[in-house]
């Protein structure tokens, strides 16, 4: 799957978790994990911040706005990180636009 170029994600798209994937807090290890078919992988703190805002109704632009405000960071910087992460997770069959 790594050979395909990552398709861009538009800010007005609404992303959601694919059925069979979810973000979950791992209470025992105190970390966020992405649960997916036959594997679970750790969501780093940045990914967890983004994914906790993925609710299947909020457009990507709104997620960027919330994070830019929360971290008092320039919007283009946040937008870059969010779009890149979403595209990468879409590529890995975690999210779908």
């Amino acid at each position, binding site marked *: *799957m790594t*050979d*395909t170029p990552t398709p861009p994600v538009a800010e007005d798209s609404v992303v959601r978790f*694919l*059925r*069979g*994937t*979810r973000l*979950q807090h*791992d209470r*025992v*290890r105190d970390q966020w*994990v992405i*649960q997916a*078919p*036959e*594997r*679970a992988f750790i969501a780093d703190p940045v990914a967890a911040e983004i994914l906790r805002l993925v609710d299947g109704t909020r457009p990507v632009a709104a997620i960027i706005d919330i994070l830019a405000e929360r971290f008092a960071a320039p919007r283009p910087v946040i937008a870059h990180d969010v779009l890149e992460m979403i595209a990468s997770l879409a590529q890995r*069959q975690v999210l779908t636009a």
Partner: protein
Amino acid sequence: MTDTPVLPPMSLLAELTHRCPLQCPYCSNPLALDGREGELATEDWLRVLDQAAELGVLQVHFSGGEPMARRDLPQLVRHAASLGLYSNLITSGVLLTEATLAQLAGAGLDHVQLSFQDVDTVPAETMGGMPGAQAKKLAAARLIVAEGMPLTTNFVIHRGNVGRIGRMLDLAVDLGARRAEIAHTQYYGWGLVNRAALMPSRAQLEEATRAVDEARTRLAGKLAIDYVTPDYYADQPKPCMGGWGRRFVNVSPTGHVLPCHAAETIKSVPIPDIRTDSLGAIWADAPLFRLFRGTDWMPEPCRGCDQREQDWGGCRCQALALLGDAAATDPVCTRSPDHARISKILADLPETPPPLVYRRYGNAPG
């Protein structure tokens, strides 16, 4: 052994039953199949799930035998979901109907892994030993996808079907699977009994690997492909179970708690039992789990090897099965003093495969 830190397990393999309508000669179940009368009760499994979640397990794989042969499967899935456990059903599909699938989906099942013996009906049913199975499996796959449940198709590879991998992956895409596993037979239990009938040649293995690589390019974006090779042809052993007592815990139909599904072959220590001890106590303290955890148990050349925390010494059950010593370096490793045993096995593979020994109660040799 006492100094090795004990990390909580990530996954529980819940082998609910050894009963199965199929008789695949490469089955990973032990030769001594557990009968229905010895199976854990529903309450036992509910308790296992409670203890697994408390211990830190994230995913539970309901397996068998055929796990759908247990009537309490939806109840177990529902309980797993209530505990936040990700539930995966590993099934042959032959007992799956629209009604049973709806029950499982309603109970919160997250994913299905559906096995196929082949892409063509005749060789598939010859291997599975169940007439009519292929049509049932195809129907099951369509029901699963129509329901919206994510589907992984699993194909076990051997010398008889190794040439059809490309078509197997096309079938997976046609059925709407998101993932496919192309898993070469692992030579334990029934697979070991049938090794001479199943093991591909090196040329066949290379052809298989090319077919997978080609499909990964051709089907990129449509299908994720997991590829498992037969370790006899490897230079380094596989990191079996991600290390002994490190990530996986297996509970057998009768409640034996094992570091891997073949570990009942190790007779030097008692087999822990979920009916008498808790999963947490067994995971941390049972001699079977402490036996090969970490690296302190290792002999040379493992002990001084820079790969010791990558492959964890390979597979203990393979060392036992092939060398009679579970604590030996996995002979698959080219650094093993016994690696010539593997070369000889491969050199001695017969031109014509011997008859298959089917996996069924009372059919194990010896």
